[in-house]
């Protein structure tokens, strides 16, 4: 009943809400804060620390955008969203951008009228199982009970994968990652499936991570990236090129350690100069200050620094760069040039 009433209210709110203004950039500047949708809590990607300060890989993107637009990486209002509420929150204008490891798919981009500005993590869906279950491949999961976050692409991938391999399973839909973790640890489901990065993050929170194995099969492509509403191209450009600036900074060797020095005066590399605003008018073209990219990079470091600090091999999550390395290192990260 409460839920129905809530949706009813949501619909009425949908009726009543005036059209979210097309000029999100102006709204954000006027408001002085960026409303950024994140997960309800996934260690390494977005979770509040003991002091209630949000931190993580996706949070880093939010902070970079806030720094680029407003000059202050802390001028962000984080809005926790579930798999179900995220798109409504973005479409209704409650949030300005969504950085919630959301998979870029055709129907979300085209039919739901969103604009994916890029990919900040190349992921794929995997399975985690207790070691003593004795399973070494997802193909051995015939008849297994599988916990799955409802309202995500993983739900569809799972159905497709089991159907293609002609094996049966029993889905146990759950609402949040925390709930899935609880169900899985209690043995109410045999395996838990979500994006491999999420599995690594979840396993890091277990009491005995070594008792659980991540099965080798990656059953889908999950390019995760931040997204904005369709139809506001200026704002989409700001978020897209902020993300690109973080990636370009790593490629060009610009880090949070040397950025002040590099931005102080034009350097010998014209691309760094254009990126950091010591040459050219790139900031003005976006409607931002000349030092927008410098602020964005200084907020949390370049892409590689964000990765290493939040989810890299020296963190409890321990993800290797893999596909998420720079193209020069055999990965897929490849930003268009800043010129």
């Amino acid at each position, binding site marked *: 009943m409460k839920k129905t009433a809530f*949706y009813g209210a949501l619909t009425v709110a949908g009726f009543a809400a005036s059209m979210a203004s097309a000029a999100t950039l102006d709204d954000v500047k006027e408001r002085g804060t960026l409303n950024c949708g994140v997960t309800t809590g996934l260690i390494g990607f977005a979770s509040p620390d003991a002091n209630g300060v949000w931190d993580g890989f996706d949070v880093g993107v939010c902070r970079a955008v806030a720094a680029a637009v407003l000059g202050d990486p802390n001028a962000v209002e984080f809005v926790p969203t579930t798999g179900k509420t995220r798109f409504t929150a973005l479409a209704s204008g409650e949030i300005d951008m969504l950085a919630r490891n959301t998979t870029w798919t055709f*129907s979300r981009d085209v039919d739901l009228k969103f604009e994916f500005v890029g990919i900040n993590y190349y992921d794929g869906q995997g399975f985690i199982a207790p070691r003593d279950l004795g399973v070494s491949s997802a193909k051995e999961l015939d008849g297994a009970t599988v916990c799955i976050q409802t309202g995500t692409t993983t739900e569809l991938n799972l159905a497709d994968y089991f*159907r293609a391999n002609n094996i049966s399973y029993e889905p*146990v839909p759950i609402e949040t990652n925390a709930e899935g973790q609880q169900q899985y640890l209690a043995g109410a489901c*045999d395996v838990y499936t979500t994006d491999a990065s999420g599995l690594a993050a979840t396993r890091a929170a277990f009491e005995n991570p070594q008792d659980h194995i991540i099965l080798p099969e990656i059953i889908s492509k999950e390019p995760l990236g931040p997204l904005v509403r369709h139809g506001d191209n200026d704002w989409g450009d700001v978020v897209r090129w902020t993300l690109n600036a973080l990636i370009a900074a790593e490629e060009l060797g610009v880090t949070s350690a040397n950025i002040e020095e590099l931005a102080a005066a034009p350097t010998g590399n014209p691309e760094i100069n254009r990126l950091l605003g010591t040459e050219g008018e790139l900031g003005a073209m976006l409607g931002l200050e000349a030092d927008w990219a410098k602020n964005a990079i200084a907020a949390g470091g370049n892409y590689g620094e964000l990765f290493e600090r939040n989810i890299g091999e020296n963190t409890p999550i321990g993800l290797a760069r893999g596909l998420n390395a720079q193209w020069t290192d055999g990965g897929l990260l490849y930003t268009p040039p800043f010129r």
Partner: protein
Amino acid sequence: MTSVTDPPQGSFRLSMLINDTRYRSYTFQFIALVLLIGFMAYLGINLVSNLAAQGLNISFGFLGDPAGYDINQTVVEYDSQSSHLRAAVVGIINTLIVAFLACVTATIFGVIAGVLRLSNNWVVRKLMAFYVEIFRNIPVLIWIIIIFSIMTVSMPAPRDFRGDDATAGMLFDAFAFTNRGVYSPAPVIDGASGWIVIGVFIASIIGIFAYRRYATKKLYDTGQLLPMLWPSVALFFVPVILAYFILGRPITLDYPSLQGFNFQGGLHLRGSLIALWFALAIYTGAFIAENVRAGIQAISKGQTEAAASLGLRPGRIMNLVILPQALRVIIPPLISQYLNITKNSSLAIAVGYMDVTSTLGGITLNQTGRAIECILLLMLFYLTISLLISAVMNVYNNSVKLKER
């Protein structure tokens, strides 16, 4: 106080719409109606124009597309290639299943607790008061989650049943209580003779009612009291057992057994269904108990005393004198409680029970992004089902209400 009416006046003047009490209420009602229509129109136009501005439209075409997701509890045939419409139907059936089970169970709990609350036994009375106050004062969502969590954490996982050093065992080798739900034997009907047995069973139940009606009529007409209990019991068991053995035991039981990761075969009552069913039943049962108590207390004590002075036993007094009169007080609020159960069943998503709010209003909404269409359909469904329950219960209410002669 006498009401003063305006003296009749000759012709109609416009000011009479405000000043004349005969027209004033119509005037204000008309204004309110116009405002309401205007407000609705504003909301509607706002919705349509905003959707158009975002390049969206209202379309129900998505209902025919393949849903792409699987549902664990399906009564009708369904797989991930079925349409969104079929997924919604599966959800509707699941909603109706849990609503029906919870309504029946809540009524049983409520009637028992309500009657016992008026018991002369202090312990019983206080226990029932405790039940009512505890369960109706904690939100049902909390109860659903509590019961589900207790089941998940305290019950053994299926893998505990495996091997020689199993830490859990099956009850009578037929029932398995796991943290994934309860597995019990399921009857398997073997061809036409199996259905004949079921037909015999239904016929004997009809027979019991017919016999009781006959006995009551006989009692009223001639004053002769026929035995009630043992013919009913005999009618219930004898024909169906005879038919079962004569036809060569055409109904067998399918026992659950541990195969692979889970128990296979038998009937699987999922933990989510049990938690939702039980939570709705005990929560609403507490409200129904209060309705029943109110109904019984609405019957004056003189009725009980009069019946007792005629020599009726306490059980008979309750069944023949008090409850028939109390029912007309109990039924109307009982309708509301049934509606509450049906609507509260939409909390199913909290434990992952795939009701219509979880399929149509959850996964389908999310995968297609058709929020407005899905919510409109959901509203239509809940409205229809609530009105249907109301209609059926009103018919019943008319049959038990005081018939004035």
